[in-house]
């Protein structure tokens, strides 16, 4: 295997037969190249879609109200439907188990001031469970507590963008905790900060207790939205629960059963399930294409190896007559094939990787990002191709060495 002379012989044979070498190499390199590129594009598509949609917790249902379009039980069409505190309480009571529950009042474009700095940000009045529901990643301090809500405390959790905009350069998140900010003209104490990687919208938000926000910014008992965490409930269960909840809400808020806009329950589980299916579809597609490419490549390689060995029958006869053992001849043919396929496979791998890295910056799109090469599956594919190549070379090679040289070498 590491005999220098044997390798020289192999290099020589491979290099002095450019057509044969080129064809075998091309079929392997092309197979690996296409496989790598397809895998990379599939991975990029998946990453892009995941970036765009995968940011929030998927195991939640959202209850929202809007404008009822249909007249119902004596009520006029096109009227505003609102969820009031008693409705929210009743809704909570009629659900069996609730892993997480967060009400929301939302004020966008709220002025937040610290010292001389001020800016316009989104204020969200929420419950403590929002931390779990929104997968809030704290960078310092704490999130809102039940006591904050019970006592209508004026406390706030700041997004990373606010910390950066309002506080002096170089301020650490932990330095912000304990400071006081003006929120719509009212003083709040900062109890924590958070940073949602890659989400500018989230980082421009301030969380305050729901009860405080409802009282100070709204002065009524309207609940803007309720987000219900579903924990690890199965998709079928959440589907059933959301249907039941919508039915109950329409009855309670006097909305026509066919009214699509008065009140609705948005089951994010459904969306997540859809994306899971899209992803597994993409993955299946990429694997299918990859497998077909591999199959086509393997057939090409098998063909070429068979032709190459047949073309070399005479040479094999000569080598045998000159004192080569059958073993040595078959060994050399296989070593040549493996060497050639390994080199050209690596060429295909490099070319595919290079192409993916080359196009990645050019096609940054919402649904496409960071196409990467699945190195493991590329190597696996290369291994399979080499195995097929060797397997397809062995048959003709063994047949070639069993032919009696004097007959193979005669021109009769």
């Amino acid at each position, binding site marked *: 295997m590491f005999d220098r*002379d044997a390798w*020289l*012989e192999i290099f*020589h*044979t491979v290099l*002095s*037969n450019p057509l044969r070498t080129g064809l075998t190499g091309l079929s392997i390199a092309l197979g690996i190249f296409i496989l790598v590129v397809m895998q990379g594009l599939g991975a990029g598509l998946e990453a892009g879609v995941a970036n765009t949609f995968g940011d929030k917790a998927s195991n939640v249902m959202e209850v929202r109200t809007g404008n009822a379009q249909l007249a119902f039980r004596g009520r006029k069409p096109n009227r505003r439907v609102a969820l009031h505190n008693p409705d929210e309480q009743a809704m909570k009571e009629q659900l069996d188990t609730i892993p997480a529950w967060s009400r929301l009042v939302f004020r966008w474009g709220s002025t937040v001031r610290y010292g001389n700095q001020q800016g316009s940000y989104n204020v969200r009045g929420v419950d403590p469970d929002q931390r779990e529901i929104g997968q809030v990643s704290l960078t310092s301090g704490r999130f809102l507590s039940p006591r904050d809500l019970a006592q209508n405390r004026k406390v706030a959790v700041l997004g990373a963008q606010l910390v950066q905009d309002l506080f002096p350069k170089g301020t650490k998140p932990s330095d912000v905790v304990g400071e006081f900010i003006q929120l719509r003209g009212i003083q709040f104490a900062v109890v924590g900060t958070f940073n949602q990687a890659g989400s500018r919208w989230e980082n421009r938000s301030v969380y305050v207790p729901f009860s405080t926000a409802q009282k100070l910014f709204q002065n009524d008992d309207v609940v803007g939205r309720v987000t219900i965490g579903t924990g690890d409930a199965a998709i079928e269960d959440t589907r059933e629960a959301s249907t039941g909840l919508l039915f109950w809400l329409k009855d309670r808020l006097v909305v026509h059963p066919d009214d699509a806009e008065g009140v609705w329950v948005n089951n994010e589980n459904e969306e997540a399930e859809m994306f899971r299916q899209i992803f597994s579809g993409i993955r299946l597609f990429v694997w299918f294409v990859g497998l077909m490419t591999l199959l086509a490549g393997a057939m090409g390689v098998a063909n070429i190896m068979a032709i190459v060995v047949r073309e070399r029958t*005479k*040479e094999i*006869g*000569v*080598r*045998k*007559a*000159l*004192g*080569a*053992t*059958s*073993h*040595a001849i078959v060994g050399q043919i296989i070593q040549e094939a493996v060497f050639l396929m390994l080199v050209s496979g690596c060429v295909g791998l490099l070319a595919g990787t290079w192409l993916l890295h080359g196009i990645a910056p050019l096609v940054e799109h919402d649904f496409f990002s960071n196409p990467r090469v699945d190195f493991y599956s590329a190597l696996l594919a290369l291994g399979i191709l080499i195995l097929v190549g060797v397997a397809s070379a062995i048959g003709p090679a063994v047949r070639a060495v069993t032919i*009696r*040289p*004097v*007959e193979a*070498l*005669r*021109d*009769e």
Partner: protein
Amino acid sequence: MIELHGIRKSYQSGAQTLEVLKGIDCTINKGELVAIMGSSGSGKSTLLNVLGLLDDFDGGSYHLDGNDMGGLGEKQAARYRSEFLGFVFQSFNLIGYKTALENAALPLYYQGVSRKERQKQALHYLTKVGIADWAEHLPNQMSGGQKQRVAIARALIANPRVILADEPTGALDSVTSDEVMGLLKEINREGITIVVVTHENEIAAQCDRIIRLKDGRIENPQAQHHV
């Protein structure tokens, strides 16, 4: 040098058994130049295969330079081929992508001789067959006579006891044929036993002795005792 006793060989062809060699008795002495003649189907190829250790035989005995060649393994046969035998073929059978020098050096590769030594030896034998100027040429740049000289150099390089030549002049014109035969006779005079398979009477006539094969038997057993 070569002693054959009752060599039999048959091939299985479908359900039929085709007996090709039906008991060959023959002795070829050291330093002899012997022709084997016979029409096609007479068994001369098969005999050459057996003599060249490229095929086994079913019965009888074969001694090469006193060594029993019966029931050799693949490895042993390859070793005897590379140490005892040199081959010359009708269609030269040089490897097309190797130069004359590399072609001539190939047998030494299978004997594990170093690259440098191989090339030195190859050049020596190419010089000996008068074709050193063509050492770096590929076979398709040479004439038939030149190619056969390269093939003879290749057969000589391992310093064999016997050279087996299968229709060595079959693809050559008469002038070149004479040259190649002259070269073989010269090599023979240095003491190397040569067996030439041919169907040309003029070629056979230049040999010390003619063994005629017909239907798997030697037609002229008396030739055994010639010389």
